[in-house]
């Protein structure tokens, strides 16, 4: 009797496990971008923007302004790649400091970072893939 219960439980759990691990192709792709982006964020962005995306005082803007990130999604790749020299208004405050460029980052790196940022710190924009990064980067002003 006891063994029957155990077997039944084991069956239920393994079925759940299999179902759970069956992510769709899109979900898997998103997860790949997101986790890759997290590692790159820690290497290239976190010193200034902090692990929780809150930035630093009025020196470094936060990444928690979901409206800004949504409205300026197509500019993010250029900002990451070429840095920022103009002032920028985020969260109702103006930031004047320069942001350093990251010319060494490939389109794929930038796509992963943007996927991570725009789906963390309260943002939820979904996948930003490498072809989007490529076309956005073609339209950079400099």
């Amino acid at each position, binding site marked *: 009797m006891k063994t029957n219960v155990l077997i039944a439980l084991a069956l239920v759990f393994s079925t759940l496990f299999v179902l759970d691990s069956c992510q769709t192709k899109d979900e898997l792709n998103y997860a790949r971008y997101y986790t890759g982006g997290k590692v790159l964020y820690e290497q290239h962005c976190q*010193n200034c923007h902090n692990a929780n995306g809150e930035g630093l*005082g009025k*020196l470094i803007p936060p990444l928690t302004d979901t409206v800004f990130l949504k409205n300026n999604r197509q500019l993010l790749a250029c900002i990451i790649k070429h840095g920022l020299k103009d002032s920028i208004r985020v969260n109702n405050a103006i930031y004047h400091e320069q942001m*350093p460029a990251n010319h060494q980052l490939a389109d794929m790196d930038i796509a992963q970072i943007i996927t991570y940022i725009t789906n963390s710190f309260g943002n939820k924009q979904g996948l930003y893939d490498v072809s989007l990064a490529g076309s956005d980067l073609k339209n950079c002003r400099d």
Partner: protein
Amino acid sequence: MKFSLPLVVASVLIAGCSSNEKKQLPILGNREPVEKTVDGKTVVDTVYQTIPEFQFLNQDSVSLTDKDFNGKIYVADFFFTSCPSICPVMHRNMLKVFKEFKGNDEVKLLSHTIDSKYDTPSKLKAYAQKLGVYGNQWQFAWGDRDKVYPLAEKNYLVAVNQDKNAPGGYIHQGWFILVDKQKRLRGAYDGTKPDQVDQMIADMHTLLDEYK
């Protein structure tokens, strides 16, 4: 009633350890024995490394000297405002120290810029304000590299240098150096690591207790 001897010994030892003896921080840096004559007798005293006199300008373009730190314990670090690497992390952590001791007359913070060309006092002022720092408890010091670099390396034991290949043009270490009221070095902490900065805050309370 049966007593276990090791248990008794252990409890006595533990009681002995928790006596009123205050925890003290080590004294860091070089030291040398000096012979002195006290009441006609020759005694050997230890002279510890101390921070020498200095004079800089602060964020208000007002003279800032070692005398402004008399009777205070303070934390010193080296940074530059356009630093893209470790400085934001250091000062995010230093802000925590600032908030912990805000208004405490015995505690000061001292950040030296190592980029005297770009970081003029007015730049330092703007930086401090954007960081959310007002008042004179956290001082930002500006001075020639000929004065700042030797002070960093010889006296605070922090390596700083110019390097064209480093991000922002300078390499430097992110140490927070804790200095006591006699200007002796009492601790060095990695200012980029939150757990070490928490340790420093605890050690600063320990150090302040020495003067009670």
